[in-house]
């Protein structure tokens, strides 16, 4: 059946089964492959998007539950000041190794900074511990968040 959802400020139509996780709607149907599949059970955070500003694992959110909520993905987060600062910080610090998890990392970091503009190390740990990076770029992710937030590394 057809669902109209708001993604990155645009209304997009997806004709899929209602139980289809938002992750696969974004990737397969709406051609927004920046959101990544990593585990399918909300353990890795690679699929993190914002739903009304809240970080959500899109592998666990069926499209029928999205309703009129505003979905923001990595393709759209650069339109926010925080998102752009994080993207620039990631490039400036050369955070990525393989880069696969970084979309999810940036989405979790953007949600953190929107709520907590100057996070402490403990706040960063708490916000980011659900996002795995198999290359283990954690030290640079932490630095990237601090650079974007303008707090001392």
């Amino acid at each position, binding site marked *: 059946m057809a669902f109209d959802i708001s993604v990155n400020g645009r209304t997009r139509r997806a004709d899929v*089964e209602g139980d289809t996780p938002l992750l696969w709607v974004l990737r397969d149907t709406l051609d927004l492959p920046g959101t990544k599949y990593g585990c399918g059970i909300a353990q890795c955070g690679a699929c993190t998007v914002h739903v009304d500003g809240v970080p959500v694992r899109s592998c666990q959110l069926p499209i029928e539950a999205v309703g009129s909520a505003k979905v923001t993905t990595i393709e759209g987060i650069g339109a926010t000041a925080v998102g752009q600062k994080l993207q620039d910080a990631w490039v400036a610090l050369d955070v990525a190794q*393989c880069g696969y998890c970084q979309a999810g990392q940036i989405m979790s970091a953007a949600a953190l900074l929107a709520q907590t503009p100057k996070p402490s190390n403990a706040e960063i740990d708490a916000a980011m511990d659900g996002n795995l990076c198999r290359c283990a770029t954690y030290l640079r992710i932490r630095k990237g968040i601090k650079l974007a937030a303008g707090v001392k590394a």
Partner: protein
Amino acid sequence: MNAQMQHQPSRRLVLKAGVALTGGLMISFGPANRASAQAMQPLNSHVRIDPDGRVTLVSHNPEIGQGVKTSIPMLIAEELDVPWQSVRIDQALADSATYGRQVAGGSMATTLQYEPLRRVGAAARHMLVAAAAQRWSVPADSCTTSAGSIVHSGTGRKLGYGEVAAAAALLPAPDPATLKLKDPKDFKVIGKPHGGVDNRAIVTGKPLFGIDARVPGMAYASYVRCPVFGGTIRSAKLDKARAANGVRAVFAVESNGAIEGLSAGVAIVADSTWAARKARSLLEIEWDEGDGASQSSAAIAARAAAFKDRMPQRSLAKVGDADAALAAAVRRVSASYAYPFIAHAAMEPMNCTAHYKDGQVELWVPTQNPEPGRAQVAKTLGIAPEAVKIHMLRCGGGFGRRLINEFMVEAAVISKQSGLPVKLLWSREEDLQNAPLRPAGFHHLEAGLDANGAVTAWRNHFISFGEGDTFKRSAGLSPSQFPSGFVPAFDMGASVMPLTHPTGPLRAPGNNAFGFVMQGFIDELAEAARMDPLAFRQQLLGDARLVGDPAARDRFDSGRARAVLDAVAKSAGWGRTLPPRSGLGIAFHFSHLGYFGTVVEAAVGRDGVVKVSKVWMAGDVGRQIVNPSGALNQVEGSVHDALGAALGQQITLENGRVVQGNFDAYRLTRMSDAPPVAVEFLLSDNPPTGLGEPAYPPVPPALVNAIFAATGVRIRSLPVDSALLKA
């Protein structure tokens, strides 16, 4: 193309120059046996300079996060003398006839390419200078280059590379061996930190990875394999799955008989990933699980323990008389070490997009090693290897997993049989349960010490997997493994047991475990000798010398090992006093031509939980770090990867099946686990070598040695069991 080809032989490679489709200069450097008639395709050259001045450099190796897509073109750009920001980087197709080895493995890119690719850049520069000199009717040696232009020294006249690219393309290619390379003190690109060339695309979510491939008309495939490796289908009812919404085809597939190839299974082809996945639960398959179903980690460990009191099935290395030396020793120490199977768990699960049409197949695939995949796809489909076209897409992690290409074969077969272009995606569960593993291993060790703490005897009975004299893949032990050559009586033997589940290389294969075993046991010897762990290692290494087979490239340089050991001890403040239940541990290791020393500072809670507060690393990978930003990233990542594996990773087999199904049961390192890492590179006068692997092996032993310093408990089996550490 209207290429006019010239080529000059070098020792192993041939340089070719020609006219690009754009009318500019194109240079390629490939194997000497490359057919000269073969046209250079636009993508298949290392350097292209267009008449409008645009410079395109090609990275020919797979990118798995080790940074070669940046570091390889940096080598060319340096000698070509172009500003790094001005070049465009393309990823090559898999084409070993043009490029030779295209493998992300063994930390070999820098080792093999550091000089040849600089010569490629120098050759292009040489030809551009010659063309400009011709135009000006001046001697070539009166011209220099600067940031993409040729300058005539006498008159200050200047021509952009693009302006002479067409003329340069008609000149004879120089003999690469005669080209003068830059003095490293003049480097402008090499040795300066550069961010990854794909960074902007990564942070903005652009399609980049294998999983992002999209082909018109593409369907989505899922493949169900037997939970026990090597199993076959006894019977399968497929109708319910066929009737599901969005499902286009469901069919059984037979194994192609290759261990690293196509396993028997059932393919589901659907309109979406979700539809393909959901239909899996509708399949009713009865498997013949085969011989593997009886194997378990518990039985393997029991069998390994039983080998302890037996003679090894065969000898791997024997120097001197270990029995006599042990009998004469002042102190004898024996211990058994063990480490488990672990999984690669790259963040991007295995996938491949395939389009089979009219006897040709095109593949879009994140692979570390395309050629074995090509061979197997061709053989399985019954087509020529040339009929397989492989686009190497960025890999979301490799760690050795993508050296094995069964997903390529699966996707190709499913596309052929369904008649559709398909994207095959493995689930995380399949990634952990149907994939090759880092082999478990067991070492029964015994050593003897004299009154001065010198190691006089070393015996290692290594228990691994294989048949007869053959180890399973990545399950062997090199006779040159340290301390081979440092102990007068050295005896290394092996016994193997069969294992059905496939094994394979994982980052620093073998070494990722041997570092733990050897440097953990050496710490025990230091304790028995009542010596400081650093001083004991310094004495064991002795004077600076080369140890090992003079013909081997990987001779052990004890001077380099000593230097990284001393450097890391110094930066970590070795010997300082720590609070109760905290300790420093030290280790060093040589692998993949790189030397690393590690100090770990760890605290162990009364609950047995280990917290690493800091890690110090000193490394020697030769006289030049190509990209300091990427290099530091590799070392930091290796440290956290190794700590995570040592503290928490284990794959268990039961009834031939992998027990762990996803990241809830297989614990990777997270942000709050990652301690700061201090990294120091020692620049020795040796050729530059790779960094993807050698920083990993000394980390687990430095950790367990720190745990010993904190608690007095020896950890001889990984992952660390916190129950042993409770106070």
